[in-house]
């Protein structure tokens, strides 16, 4: 009972069969996977000999505690996200998990299949072809990352401002991992980040087999030594990775979804190096750094050495009344007109999809080259690419583009920046879109609001603090 109580609060993974070297196999597509029968793509005859060889092991899908259940695929424990149904296949009343049902229904009478992670991945020699140079600050972080990869079991938080060049800092550590035949996964809550990073890694590591995995990616196999994936993909992995990097660890939906934390812990091998990347750590991480139980490295300076653009706050008393009439105050329209006469493109953030689309239409009728992008937009990937190629001048969007995506020369305006969707982290990230390129390291960031919020003030303080710390270091 007491053990039960403990296990309920501290997720444990001792139900995952240990992968002994004697179980080593030649099925990279099964290594470290936790799948349902229909996801296996293994015929029944083959299953009959993969199980005795411990290449695949059947494990219970739903664990029963004294007071409830836990789904072993997604870690869900919420009482109201389990349900019972009369199950035609077994004739019994069976329990299933409603939380991860989009990936296929997990039931207590049907096992999950765990693929042994004893697969020998290729040991690449000199995999990194990147020829750039790391800045002094990047080098410091790169050394810590490499140390963490080398050491094995352990965690590291890399706190680096937007535009610090996080991706390049990873290259030396990734190189070491790939040379040692370690399996690596970079996971992030944001699909746009996966799409942005994947080609960059491909370019830097041209001979390494890398796969990008996300909801509707063409690639589904997940049989590469280096995966770039959304954190949701980790629901299908267990004790799979020697190195796991969680990029944008503070981003929605990762930061407030315990099932994603469960999945990423489970996807890491017991002796894995776990590296978190963030520009805006949440309180929980800051507390862990302070109490000394999370090693961290801090990079307050951008890779090009210039300070972060500090946002200007502009009070617009009339914003709500214009907004109600689906209009923008003339002062904002004037600012946009003035901005559009410069060479920079404009990123325009709104608190909701509806407002973003409304404004895109208004600006379009006024003759601007403008497009809007939001989370449910099927055309999102193409529109972002076109904006990056400077095919049009104004991109109107929501917090969906607050992070991960970089454009070389933009100004950033946030309309109704006092809205509750813009928390401190979101505003810091949004401001961080400006001044990314060494050729144009400045950028104007304006937060239009109809009343200052703590988030607004905290965000500006945060950016000023970073610039101050950068000057001191």
């Amino acid at each position, binding site marked *: 009972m007491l053990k039960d109580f403990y296990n309920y609060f501290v997720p444990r993974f001792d139900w995952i069969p240990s992968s002994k070297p004697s179980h080593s196999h030649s099925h990279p597509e099964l290594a470290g996977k936790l799948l349902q029968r229909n996801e296996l793509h293994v015929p029944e005859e083959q299953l009959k000999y993969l199980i005795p060889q411990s290449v695949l092991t059947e494990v219970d899908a739903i664990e029963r505690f004294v007071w409830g259940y836990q789904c072993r695929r997604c870690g869900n424990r919420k009482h*109201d*996200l389990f*349900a*019972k*149904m*009369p*199950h*035609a*296949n077994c004739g019994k009343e*069976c329990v*299933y998990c*409603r939380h991860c*049902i*989009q990936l*296929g*229904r997990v*039931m207590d009478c049907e096992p999950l299949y765990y693929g042994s992670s004893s697969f020998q991945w290729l040991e690449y020699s000199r995999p990194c072809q990147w020829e750039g140079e790391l800045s002094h600050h990047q080098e410091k972080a790169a050394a810590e990352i490499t140390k963490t990869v080398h050491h094995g079991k352990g965690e590291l938080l890399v706190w680096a401002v937007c535009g610090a060049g996080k991706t390049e800092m990873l290259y030396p550590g990734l190189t070491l991992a790939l040379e040692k035949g370690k399996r690596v996964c970079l996971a992030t809550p944001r699909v746009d980040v996966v799409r942005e990073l994947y080609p960059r890694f491909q370019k830097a590591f041209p001979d390494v087999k890398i796969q990008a995995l996300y909801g509707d990616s063409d690639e589904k196999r997940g049989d590469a030594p280096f995966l770039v994936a959304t954190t949701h993909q980790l629901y299908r992995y267990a004790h799979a990775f020697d190195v796991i990097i969680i990029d944008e660890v503070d981003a929605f939906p990762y930061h407030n979804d315990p099932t994603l934390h469960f999945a990423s812990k489970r996807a890491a091998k017991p002796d894995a190096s776990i590296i978190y990347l963030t520009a805006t750590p949440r309180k929980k991480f800051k507390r862990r750094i302070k109490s000394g139980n999370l090693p961290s490295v801090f990079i307050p300076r951008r890779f090009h050495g210039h300070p972060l653009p500090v946002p200007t706050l502009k009070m617009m008393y009339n914003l709500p009344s214009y907004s109600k009439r689906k209009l923008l105050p003339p002062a904002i329209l004037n600012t946009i007109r003035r901005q559009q006469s410069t060479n920079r493109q404009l990123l325009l953030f709104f608190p909701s999809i509806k407002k973003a689309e409304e404004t895109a239409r208004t600006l379009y009728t006024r003759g601007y080259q403008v497009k809007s992008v939001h989370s449910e937009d099927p055309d999102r990937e193409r529109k972002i690419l076109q904006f990056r190629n400077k095919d049009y001048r104004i991109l109107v969007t929501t917090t969906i583009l607050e992070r991960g995506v970089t454009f070389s020369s933009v100004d950033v305006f946030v309309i109704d920046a006092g809205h509750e969707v813009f928390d401190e982290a979101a505003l810091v990230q949004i401001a961080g879109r400006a001044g990314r390129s060494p050729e144009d390291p400045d950028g104007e960031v304006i937060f239009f609001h109809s009343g200052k919020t703590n988030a607004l003030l905290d965000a500006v303080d945060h950016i000023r603090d970073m610039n101050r710390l950068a000057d001191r270091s």
Partner: protein
Amino acid sequence: MRCYVCHQEIMLVVTWDTFWRPPKKEKICNDCLDEMKVLGEAGCPVCSREDSTGVCFDCKRWTKSHPDLLKRNTSVYHYNGFAKDLVARWKYRGDYVLIQSVEEQIVKAFDEAGYRNWPLIPIPLSDEREKERGFNQSEAIIELLNKSPVQALVRSHSEKQSKKGRLERIHSQNPFTLVEPICKPVVLVDDIYTTGTTVRHAASLLTEQGCPEVYSFTVFR
């Protein structure tokens, strides 16, 4: 309590009524319930089709070719985009309890149609389909109505043809076999009434074997 459909927390409104009695457990939030369009009184009196005044074109055609096959179909909801998503999650993803979110309205419509004391016959699935989903949607509805299914039919060939056009379907072979003739009025139960072919296939077998009247109860139309 969370909404079965969108998982958002359902706010309980405290009125004098709920103040004295324990509130009943809501399974659907008002936002989701608003999206579910209950079919009105108007529409086709035979099949519940909404956009028709008087007997609809389809039903007239059925009457001409197969008079008196189906007395009447009662449906609860318009099969709109929201309902389609709900059915996809319920039936294809297999989230069995999802349909319980609208239990109350389904039971009410069923009782108002006066079907409570009649034998309820589920539309059978092929073994393959049933194994895939883990349940039969018609039986799930009967369970929801707190009744027991009467297994009068079995499926003799698979559902694959449901992709064919309407005409093809009407003339295609009857996919069912009757295993238990019933000589009193019955109600066929299914999730969706689209062209009415499925229930009429089932009805034709029942009437041939002496069933006087066949009705159908389908949740979506």
